[in-house]
């Protein structure tokens, strides 16, 4: 259960047999080639995989450096890579004979995907979401509820992703008999980091073939945003043995360095090793081991911990980490919308921002691949606020007047 010295399974004793069962079922599924085949077929017919790799010729030309390509996880059903993991876990849940799923969600993408999976598999579902995130990602909440999920706004702690995870653990220790906890990112207790990484490896497996086909060579650098780290590890796995391909994880720089200003665990120097949320990894915490407040414009990156697999790869110098500030993200998003007609999610825009920065310094025959982990539709309230869009504000005011007082 360890990746280097990170990972492990730190859970209350009452979940011991549940997590053991999960480890066994996961191992069996992983060793069963028909399982992966079933997964692939489900993702093809339901989610539209394989997602394409798109060449951004306009953006590349404008920057005058490397050729930029994008892996289009935004084209998945529900609009992000989260569906890969969720449908995979859904198949596992079916094998285990459980009938109820719970999930935490930050940006709402994982909750949205889980609600979708639950509807499709006929599971009962409850989604825990920090109250702060409920407020900034309301559209996703609306759809989750309409797909039949109960959405619980978590008012503990910082009221974001980490608190939703705690609340899921509390639910799980009560209902483990019929309930599977669909963890949304490559974090938490083993086997989740390995399991989520495995399902997300579908991204990298496709992408490696596609980029060779499209660009005629392996990419020189690959960029992916890192919140929990599942989309990054998903893509990176396809290129792990390609030593000439640099792997760059892009964290939420928020307002910039300084404890409480950001959610960058590895790119900045504010995080240390700890044990929480079921795993041993780098956390943004104080000297007492209590977690710090974090900040990011992107709810899905606004998280205290990080994928232990990525930490291990970082220590081995296989993955480089960079932080991107909110301001850089907004600029990258605007540029991408206008030059290519793509709307990356605020999370994914972190990858774009760092890639744009580095592309300019690279040669024209070098190749960059960015993981567009999700689409930005869900961020309309946040982006409209970030851009200070007056039309949008008028529209909301008018809509509110229409509804009248409570």
């Amino acid at each position, binding site marked *: 259960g360890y990746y280097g010295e990170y990972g492990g399974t*730190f859970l209350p004793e*009452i979940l*011991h047999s549940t997590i053991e069962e999960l480890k066994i079922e996961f191992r069996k599924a992983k060793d069963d080639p028909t399982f992966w085949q079933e997964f692939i077929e489900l993702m093809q017919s339901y989610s539209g995989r394989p997602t394409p790799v798109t060449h951004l010729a306009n953006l590349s030309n404008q920057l005058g450096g490397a050729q930029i390509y994008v892996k289009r996880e935004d084209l998945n059903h529900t609009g992000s890579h989260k569906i890969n993991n969720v449908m995979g876990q859904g198949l596992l849940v079916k094998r285990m004979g459980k009938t109820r799923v719970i999930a935490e969600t930050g940006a709402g993408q994982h909750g949205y995907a889980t609600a979708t999976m639950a509807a499709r598999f006929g599971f009962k579902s409850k989604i825990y979401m920090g109250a702060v995130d409920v407020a900034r990602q309301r559209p996703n909440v609306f759809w989750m509820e309409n797909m039949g999920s109960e959405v619980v706004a978590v008012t503990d*702690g910082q009221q974001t992703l980490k608190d939703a995870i*705690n609340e899921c653990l*509390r639910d799980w220790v009560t209902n483990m008999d019929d309930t599977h906890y669909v963890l949304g990112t490559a974090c938490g207790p083993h086997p989740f980091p390995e399991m989520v990484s495995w399902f997300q490896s579908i991204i990298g497996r496709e992408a490696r073939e596609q980029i060779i086909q499209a660009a005629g060579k392996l990419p020189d650098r690959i960029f992916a945003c890192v919140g929990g780290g599942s989309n990054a590890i998903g893509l990176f796995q396809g290129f792990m043995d390609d030593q000439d391909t640099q792997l760059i994880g892009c964290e939420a720089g928020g307002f910039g360095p300084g404890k409480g200003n950001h959610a960058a665990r590895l790119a900045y120097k504010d995080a240390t090793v*700890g044990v929480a949320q*079921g795993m041993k990894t780098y956390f943004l915490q104080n000297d*007492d081991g209590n*977690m710090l407040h974090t900040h990011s414009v992107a709810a899905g990156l606004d998280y205290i911990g990080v994928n232990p697999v990525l930490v291990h790869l970082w220590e081995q110098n296989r993955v480089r980490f960079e932080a991107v500030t909110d301001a850089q993200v907004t600029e990258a998003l605007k540029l991408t919308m206008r030059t290519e007609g793509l709307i990356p999610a605020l999370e994914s825009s972190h990858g774009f921002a760092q890639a744009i920065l580095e592309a300019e310094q690279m040669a024209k025959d070098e190749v960059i691949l960015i993981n567009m982990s999700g689409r930005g539709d869900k961020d309309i309230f946040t982006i409209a606020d970030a851009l200070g869009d007056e039309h949008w504000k008028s529209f909301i005011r008018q809509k509110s007047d229409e509804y009248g007082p409570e």
Partner: protein
Amino acid sequence: MDLNNYLLERKSALANSDRPAMIMTHVVCGYPSFEDNWKALEVMQSFGVDLVELQFPFSEPSADGPLFVKANQEAILNGVHVDDCFEFMQKVTAHFSFKVVMMGYYNTVFKTGQQQFLERLKAAGAVGFILPDLPVDEAGELHSIAKQLGLAPILLMTPTNSDARLDELAQSADGFIYTVARKGVTGSNTDMNHSVSDFIDRCRQFTTLPLAVGFGVSTAADVEFIGAHADIAVIGTAALKAWEHGGEASLTAFFKQLLPAQVDV
């Protein structure tokens, strides 16, 4: 170990009283304040409790129920640090006759350093520790330090554990075993019924250590039920509720109905 001997003594002392079981209570350090903690402990002492868990507040108390989540959170907001907890523990063990175990989450230990944390715990007079998010599989090093220092690593047995697992837990535990009478977080309501006693009896097959029963104890009948099957009744949420409701007076009234029989302190 200190704790083992202490519990043997207390057990035989109680054998001659009408108190059906030993009692362990719970306090979250610094919530609502250290002054309140102290007053609560005085009430507990007056009712002859045997053990007290002092919880070190943690920002991610994922095994706790809503009341203790709030207590952890507020304590941190009040500026309670690990140093303050040790200092308070020191005062408590110096002043009161009950024994004290540390309760908390593993990151608090890990961040301080395992060796250093347990040494400080020892120095502050504690006799053991309960870390609900540290499975025995991950606890090897910590337990061996504890052994050297004479601190009891208190482990939880749960209804979902296999026989093999219960055996494994029994091998690593010391002091007493915390048997979790039902699924769920702290403060969940539990019917003290047949399935609980069956579970306790099952635990008993694997260990000779005293068995504590937790989660939801709030009446004299509960204590009596526990006394019939196990050794220690754990009073957590119900006591904190009483304190929040009306401080010393409410807490005193709560213990009066819970523990009608007086014992020597």
